[in-house]
């Protein structure tokens, strides 16, 4: 059976630096996490998956359609959407407008519809607004729909970004450090929200995360990257006890033999 999302042998070089080297990845359902030390190539991998960077080698498919070579907006239209490590909201637009932009790929109405206010346009706007408000409701920000994004507290901005990403009705959601800057309590409630999304919407979620407690709690599967290569993959507790993972994070004990890198 073919996977929902599959990457094979993805490699990306920046000049002499190989940021991602021969990474295979496969995701069918549930919540999966990618962890790894700083500079391990996690965000680069995300950028390749979403079309921001072009991979030098390898292939990426989503529902058997190749993603490499597509533009980010085309990939979003296919059903893969993302958030950013440093929240990138449209700062001077309101919360609801941010979410509405997220639905852009699904708008059927064209230029003429907008100019002539055709029934199709009015119907389309009505649907967009209704769905946008539902999404804000889902992330608990219905009351702040009219607030300008810039003026909202950090935690709310994270939630708006999530709502905006959901607005494109993705089947796969890529979240780049969604709990960065959150307290443990906020992070836990966000993870509960993600769990609900998976069960309500049948969404698959791929996380990059630094908060280990969060990762171990929420993930069905964890993948560890180091120096652009996949060094471990499996259930959270399997990965936790993996010698190479411990080494990547903490370094080798003096005098201990160097464990081989996972070449596979």
């Amino acid at each position, binding site marked *: 059976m073919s996977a929902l999302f599959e990457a094979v042998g993805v490699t990306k070089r920046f000049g002499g630096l190989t940021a991602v080297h021969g990474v295979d990845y496969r995701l069918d359902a549930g919540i999966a996490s990618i962890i790894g030390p700083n500079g391990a190539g996690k965000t680069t991998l995300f950028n390749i998956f979403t079309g921001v960077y072009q991979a030098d080698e390898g292939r990426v498919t989503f529902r058997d359609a190749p993603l490499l070579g597509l533009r980010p907006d085309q990939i979003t239209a296919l059903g893969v959407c993302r958030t950013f490590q440093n929240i990138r909201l449209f700062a001077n637009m309101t919360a609801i407008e941010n979410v509405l932009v997220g639905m852009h*790929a699904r708008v059927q109405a064209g230029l003429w519809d907008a100019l002539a206010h055709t029934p199709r346009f009015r119907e389309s706007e009505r649907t967009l607004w209704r769905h946008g408000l539902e999404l804000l409701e889902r992330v608990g920000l219905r009351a702040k729909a009219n607030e300008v994004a810039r003026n909202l507290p950090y935690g709310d901005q994270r939630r708006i970004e999530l709502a905006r990403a959901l607005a494109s009705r993705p089947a796969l959601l890529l979240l780049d450090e969604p709990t960065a800057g959150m307290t443990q309590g906020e992070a836990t409630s966000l993870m509960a929200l993600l769990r609900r999304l998976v069960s309500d919407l049948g969404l698959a979620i791929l996380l990059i995360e630094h908060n280990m407690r969060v990762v171990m709690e929420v993930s069905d599967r964890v993948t560890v990257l180091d120096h652009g290569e996949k060094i471990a993959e499996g259930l959270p507790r399997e990965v936790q006890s993996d010698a190479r993972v411990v080494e990547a994070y903490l370094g080798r004990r003096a005098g201990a033999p160097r464990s081989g890198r996972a070449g596979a």
Partner: protein
Amino acid sequence: MIHIVASIALLAVGGAAVWVFPRSILAFLTFQGALMAIYVARIPGRLRLALLAVGLLVMMPYIGSFNGYYLEVATQVGIFAALALGLNIVVGLAGLLDLGYVAFFAVGAYSWAILGSPHGNVIFGGGFPLPAWMFFVFLFVGLLVAAVTGVLLGLPVLRLRGDYLAIVTLGFGEVIRVLANNLDKPINLTNGPKGLTPISRPPLPGFADYNMAFYFLVLLIVIVIIIVNRRLEDSHIGRAWEAMREDELAAQAMGVPLVRSKLLAFACGASFAGVMGVVFSAKQLFINPESFTFLESIGVLAMVILGGMGSIPGAVVGATVVTVLNLQVLKGLSLYLNELKNAGTTILGYNLANLPTQLEPAKYERMVFGIILVVMMIVRPQGLFPARRRQRELAHAGEGVPPAAPPS
């Protein structure tokens, strides 16, 4: 309530002032100020519309009937308001800094000027100028030609942002002007610096005063442009433009196709200028490349910045302020100063007759502009009427969403 009373009172006072002092610039400025105040006052939408209609459809033409110069000013304001609204889409909404905007104005103007004047015979043999009613067809031709030019400019600059985009568009504006200046050889397309004349004027029957008819024509076009602008801004297209302005990468990641959206912004902005170019050439009867200099682009940009980027009322107000300043205030000051000079008035022991002619206010219009812009940037960088986020009356999720709140 106070806004309602004040709006009506202002309009009445302005109208009365012009009626009592038909030659007084101050009186006319009061009238214009009243219209602008009504435009932004917090009054019910219908009342606003009614008052503006009275001011623009009844009082303004009446004023124009005994002082034609005011009608000329009002027509010019309309033309520049249309330009400012077009540039507002490109710069204010989509965030693409365009310093060569007047090029589209020129393209529209030349499209009618060449075929609507006897000059067409030089190129095509005979049959020109086209019949005057073709002017109305050319409003659309000008729109299309300018939109295509907008796309042609957009294509090579798609990857540029900010300063780089500004420089390239500046160059583009100059290229169009230089082309107009030099395309009198090998085939005489534009008649070079000598310009084109006489350009046919559209037949506007039903009016005793042709200038008044022209005023209504410009007013009609501006109203259409405002409606188009509002609808664009208030649709998924406008939201995509604004998202692009805020964060290009995020906009694309959310599904906004950058290439198409940018080209559409360039084309829409340019098309307004193209239409007004056709009107402008017919109004002036004569155009040459001097009408389309870099300073004109800067002037329109100044209107947008002065009024407030991305704000439709702002663009209209900016266009009014700048045009009135140019045509009336500075010229009026010059006249006044001249009178004092000729009378040999002495101020603080200095005989004004000795004042060098370079000090005429009309001659340092650009300096006055510069000062105003600098002061604005310090005191009110968001512009006179900054774009306000629309506050929507939001229904409970599941119910229909009520129509947009009236413009604030």
